[in-house]
């Protein structure tokens, strides 16, 4: 229990502090923070639209949060989830378009495989570069983001756009590749809300990532490498292999955003669809303390802010949805400042002898 409290304390401080700082800003621009916050959270938690959309927005963040988490646990900073999910989304759409006439039983697994494998491949590139040449994964993942985004834009624009379509997007995928909206199964949740089966898949992935990292020998090796590569090497673990493995798994998880977007939502590749999911995933992993359960909670919070922000924009006089950016920024700032808090509070915490 004590351990749980310790894990929860700093994320909670970060969130509360963010709301206080945000509240001061709202006061400064001349609005009432309580009204604004009620609007923000009330709209995000209303049934069915608020909750439905919050869960829908949380889905990609869970995937990218897990992706960043797996990297972190191996001592790697994967800033490339954004590129990985773009490449994967395009590949998924390509499979969905090219094999549109296949049956669902064949096409959906093929699309899943496309999302997972392309993401893994794009993640493995900086992994291999680091393992073989020691080049830093942060630089390479950032660079590969630009390459991925430009590459898929190019293919969409010049090869896969429906002629005459003013929007930069591909043709739709075959209907047999669609995965159902959850509204079909949950009474009271309208089917128009794009929350789909990928959300269940994201929760399942949290469980799988947990089992993988903490219950298998591969997870042990990844975590050992992240915790102390010298000791891992001493224990007969190949650090190079772990780096490539962790980056591949990380990329695969980021790639699964494509399942939510392409199979569950727009049913095509839509250029620029990602609302910085890859980068917000870093914040989600940090706030979630690099634990799958934490990632779910943090993804839900960020998704609620994202959805509620739209209402703040519409219904309050001075505050715009940029307040959400402020809240997210302050949360990240405070999470990153954890070391400072530990130092400042160090002596007074009961578990700190």
């Amino acid at each position, binding site marked *: 229990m004590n351990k749980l409290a310790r894990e929860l304390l700093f994320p909670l401080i970060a969130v509360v502090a963010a709301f206080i700082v945000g509240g001061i800003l709202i006061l400064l621009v001349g609005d009432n923070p309580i009204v604004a916050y009620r609007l923000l959270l009330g709209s995000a938690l209303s049934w069915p639209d608020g909750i439905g959309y919050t869960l829908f927005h949380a889905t990609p963040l869970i995937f990218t949060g897990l992706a960043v988490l797996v990297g972190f646990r191996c001592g790697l900073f994967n800033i490339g989830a954004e590129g990985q999910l773009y490449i994967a989304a395009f590949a998924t759409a390509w499979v969905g378009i090219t094999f549109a006439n296949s049956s669902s039983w064949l096409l959906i697994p093929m699309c899943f495989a496309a999302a997972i494998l392309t993401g893994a491949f794009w993640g493995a590139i900086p992994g291999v570069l680091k393992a073989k040449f020691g080049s830093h994964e942060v630089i390479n993942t950032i660079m590969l983001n630009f390459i991925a985004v430009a590459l898929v834009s190019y293919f969409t624009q010049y090869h896969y756009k429906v002629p005459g379509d003013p929007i930069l997007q591909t043709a739709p995928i075959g209907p047999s590749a669609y995965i159902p909206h959850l509204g079909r199964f949950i009474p009271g949740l309208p089917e128009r809300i794009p929350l789909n089966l990928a959300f269940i898949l994201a929760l399942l992935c949290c469980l799988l990532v947990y*089992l993988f990292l903490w*219950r*298998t*020998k*591969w997870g*042990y*090796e990844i*975590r*050992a490498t992240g*915790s*102390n590569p*010298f*000791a*891992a*090497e*001493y*224990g*007969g*673990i*190949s650090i190079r292999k772990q780096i490539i493995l962790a980056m591949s798994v990380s990329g695969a998880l980021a790639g699964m955003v494509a399942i939510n977007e392409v199979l569950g939502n727009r049913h095509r590749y839509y250029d620029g669809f990602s609302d910085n999911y890859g980068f917000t995933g870093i914040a989600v992993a940090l706030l979630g303390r690099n634990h799958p359960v934490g990632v779910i909670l943090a993804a839900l919070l960020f998704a609620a802010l994202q959805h509620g922000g739209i209402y703040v924009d519409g219904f309050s006089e001075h505050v715009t949805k940029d307040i959400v950016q402020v809240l997210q920024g302050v949360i990240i700032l405070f999470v990153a400042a954890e070391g400072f808090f530990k130092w400042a509070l160090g002596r007074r915490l009961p578990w*700190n*002898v």
Partner: protein
Amino acid sequence: MLELRNITKRFGDVLANDNVNIVVKPGTIHAIVGENGAGKSTAMRIAYGFYTADSGEIIVDGQPRDIKSPHDAIALGIGMVHQHFMLVETMTVAENIVLGAEPGTALALDLKSAAAQIRQLSEEFKLAVNPNEPVEHLSVGQQQRVELLKALYRHARLLILDEPTAVLTPLEVEEFFVILRRMREQGKTVIIITHKLSEVLAISDEVTVMRDGKVVGRVQTKDTNAAELARLMVGREVLLRVEKTDAEVGRPQLEIRNLSVTDINGTKRVDGVSFEVRSGEIVGIAGVEGNGQTELIEALAGLVDPERISGEINFEGRNLNALGARIRRELGIAHIPEDRHRRGLLLDFSLAENSILGVHYRPPIAAMAGGIFLDENAVQRRASEIIQAFDVRPPNAALPARSLSGGNQQKLIIGREYRVDPKLLLVSQPTRGVDIGAIEFIHRQLVGLRDDGCAILLVSAELEEVTSLSDRLLIIHDGRIAGEVDPKTATLEEIGLLMTRGH
């Protein structure tokens, strides 16, 4: 000169100092001894103003004094030299010494007069330190003398030295003691914190022994001996000598031929070394640290890129050169590394998770679902076996390794490596930073493993350890084997000469 009266200090639940009374007479060298965590450093940090006591008095020159900060202590003539030097490497000796007490005006730093003063102090105490030399060019022994000068420059009459010999080679220790004696002759008072009994007996006039935060003994050095001090420190009789029978030597297990190892910068660290280790014997390697021991052991353990190795490493007649650490472990080679934090442990992992490092990927640990999943019961079983057999405290497998004391961390590593029933054990500095009680235990375990027929290669910077444990003793100097001696008959002088001169 200095007296601590009824000093009590708590850190959370831990009573670090419990009614401590220490009297240091002027013009003497006073040793404070005790195991790690006995409270000796805490008491001295209170005297130096780093911590304030919860209760009790500090008396300097017969007057009760309020020492709230090191600044107050310095004003009263108390100086302290820490175990880890606090020097700015890129600055000169003089710049380092005046740092924080710069002479001259706010705008003009008067380094010249400071340098002259430092030179005079250096001559007075025969420290042989050049004030204009950058600190990064100095040896560890010289850096320590700069720290002494720092205190002397601030007119310290009482010097507190925290584990001053931990970083010195045997020869430097001798020189250092000469300096301390000279300081005593000049009327300075010295307090030396240590846990090395031979040094206490060699240098001090009086000894205060601490255990579990309390003072448990005050003796005149001339009236005591190592056995009595060890008993006071540990609280029971301690066997200082290693008891062992003659080795029953079997066939050669490890054969090294003309082995050379270069580091990542291309410098040759091990240079054409050949020897063998047979089953049932402990072969010791003595040498001043940094003469290739680390690289030798890491090369044998499979932790060095094969491209940086030349020569032959054979184990049971099989060439190991190209094989990685995992295969070498599978063949029966265990390794107790010199740096337990860097190599030996996953500090943030639990004791249970640490206990399976190296065997985590195969049965019985990874046994479920085709050997992919770890069998949690098997992990716990292994951990509790090791914890019990090696008396790891506290005996809680769920704790992170970081929370253990150095001695208990070392016992965990040794237990883990013993658990695989090795045919060859590579051991580096097995008792570094370990309490006397645990040292005795570790030594007995090593001899026991030898008696069971294991071949052991032992590297240690502690001459006493390596001579008393080894059946054969090689001396390494500058990456080469400088000679082999019989540890039963060789004198420390003989070994010391080979260690420093190489012939």
